[in-house]
């Protein structure tokens, strides 16, 4: 059926139907036919309207697409203009200034860079800090004889009173004791003492590790130590002529702020063939 062709021209397919209906009986009133025709007309009209709508949608879509492209183009143009202007601005400044006399901006940047470098170098001194929103964060770096070891952090609150918010100090360092003693009264002393503790611990640990590493062939078994490395016990053998003498060393570090032992016990368990019957071993303790 061809849409868009309203009117009373019946279609071929319907002609038969129409005739059939006419032939069936004169029971159908003439209104039936017209109603049918009206229905067909309405149907054609609907189809028309739909087609119009679809066309309108398509046109609208095409218009919007064109608009999007237009706007994108405009945006690109404006962006290019802004970039160009910025470049020109920089060039102006560059050209206007005397290469021997740097601009205020450059001077400021150089100053900032220098201060930042200073702050970084400051970390190498062992104790450095940075102001935070709530207080200050200290960084204590440890070192031993030119080798830099671990760094530990202490985040302090300053209001209403000075206290520790959080930290990364090992648990076996007596931080609470030191804080109770010095934190409120003399913060410089607190940091100094804490730094001594940490540096001494790091040094003792480093020495123990180096001993294990470099003298592993002479040491029997493993080094016995503890978390603070303030007690070191190990055995080593000293060959002499045909015999080897087993020595046992016990190093005690009484001062936690020092990396030098306070008490050394060296003993030798050696069964002398002469006095094996009388005394099982002879010991020599040196202090």
């Amino acid at each position, binding site marked *: 059926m061809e849409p868009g062709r309203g009117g009373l021209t019946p279609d071929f397919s319907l002609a038969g139907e129409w005739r059939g209906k006419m032939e069936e009986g004169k029971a159908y009133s003439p209104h039936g036919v017209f109603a049918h025709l009206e229905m067909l007309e309405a149907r054609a009209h609907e189809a028309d309207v739909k087609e119009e709508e679809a066309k309108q949608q398509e046109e609208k879509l095409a218009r919007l697409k064109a608009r999007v492209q237009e706007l994108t183009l405009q945006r690109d143009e404006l962006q290019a203009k802004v970039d160009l202007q910025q470049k020109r601005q920089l060039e102006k400044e560059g050209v206007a200034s005397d290469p021997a006399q740097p601009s205020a901006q450059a001077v400021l940047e150089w100053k900032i860079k220098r201060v930042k470098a200073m702050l970084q170098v400051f970390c190498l001194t062992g104790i450095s800090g940075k102001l935070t929103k709530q207080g200050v964060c200290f*960084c204590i770096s440890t070192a031993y004889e030119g080798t830099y070891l671990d760094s530990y952090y202490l985040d302090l609150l300053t209001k209403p009173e000075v206290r520790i918010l959080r930290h990364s100090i090992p*648990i*076996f360092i*007596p931080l609470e*004791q030191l804080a109770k003693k010095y934190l409120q009264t003399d913060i410089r002393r607190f940091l100094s003492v804490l730094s001594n503790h940490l540096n001494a611990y790091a040094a003792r640990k480093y020495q123990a590790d180096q001993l294990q590493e470099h003298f592993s062939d002479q040491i029997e078994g493993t080094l*016995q*130590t*503890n978390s603070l490395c303030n007690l070191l016990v190990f055995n080593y053998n000293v060959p002499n002529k045909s015999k080897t003498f087993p020595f046992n060393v016990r190093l005690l570090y009484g001062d936690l702020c020092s990396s030098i032992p306070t008490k050394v016990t060296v003993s030798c368990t050696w069964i002398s063939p002469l006095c094996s019957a009388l005394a099982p071993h002879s010991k020599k303790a040196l202090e």
Partner: protein
Amino acid sequence: MDEIVAEYIRRTVLKIPRDEIKTVLQKWGFLSEAQLQTINFCQIKENISQDVVQLCEENSAGVKQAAVLDIIYNHIYSNKRVWSVYQMNKTGEETDFFDVTDFKKKFKRRLQSALTNVTINFREYEDNAIWIRIAWGTPYTKPNQYKTSYVVYHSQTPYVFISVSVLKRNLPLLCQALVAASNYHDIHEMELRSHSLNSLKDIVFKRYSQNFQSYYPRPIQERNVGPENSRIIQENRNEKERIQRVNSEVFGDGPQPKLEFARYKLETMFKSDPQMNVLNKKEPFRCLVKFSSPHLLESLKSLAPVGMADAPLSPLLTCIPHKARNYFKIKEKKGVSPRSFVSP
């Protein structure tokens, strides 16, 4: 060799995954390399365990060697057990020269004086960790090697890690022995439990990643930035960066300690519209909230970047490693108490 010992060794070997049996036996060191070569480690575990028992028979293994094998197994597969953290206190300020031999002697003496029928074995590790294995008996029966508790202690620290055993009644004895041996005064259980022993250590020893502000030059971390598509414009880039920054401040940049759950016991009042007539009695509304996850802290860390929660997260969630606890009791806010919280 004792039948019980043989069976115990056999069962311990059966627990180990087949591919790792050889490594564990090498760590044990009781069987020589030559003996280990004679075992076919490709056969079924049942047969491997029989072969191992055979060789142990040749070397006359005793309870001590079997116990050492058990410690090694539990050290490698420590995440099969639940570990609790206990804290000790002492009042003295003297420097402690911790001597491991001294500690072991005192511990054994104290525990055996209270209960003679116990098997106690020690093993020290490189990181100053002392592992103690205790097999419990009763005043009338020999120690049962299958009823064991494990204790991990780092010298000169106030923390002890205990694997909860079935025999809770022996816990006070164990605690007393620990306190005596380590020169402390008392011990109490902390509200911190997990399967991952190393994560518990990280939390209490403060070894987990915290973001400290400093001028110390740190290497710039490579952020995984995918290929930038110039046609995609991130409208909320600022917000994303803010969330990333806040997250970094709270959680740090490194991996988080591994916890499986956090439990909050609420004892707060239910607040509702008085006209609704719900729970008019002024009684606390008891409620238990439990967060479970294979890796709780990592999942909390990713909540804000993924968009499921606002950043910064509630301090109740983010304080877990800092406060070293994952069991909380929340009561009504009475004055300024850091632990209490008013329910919404």
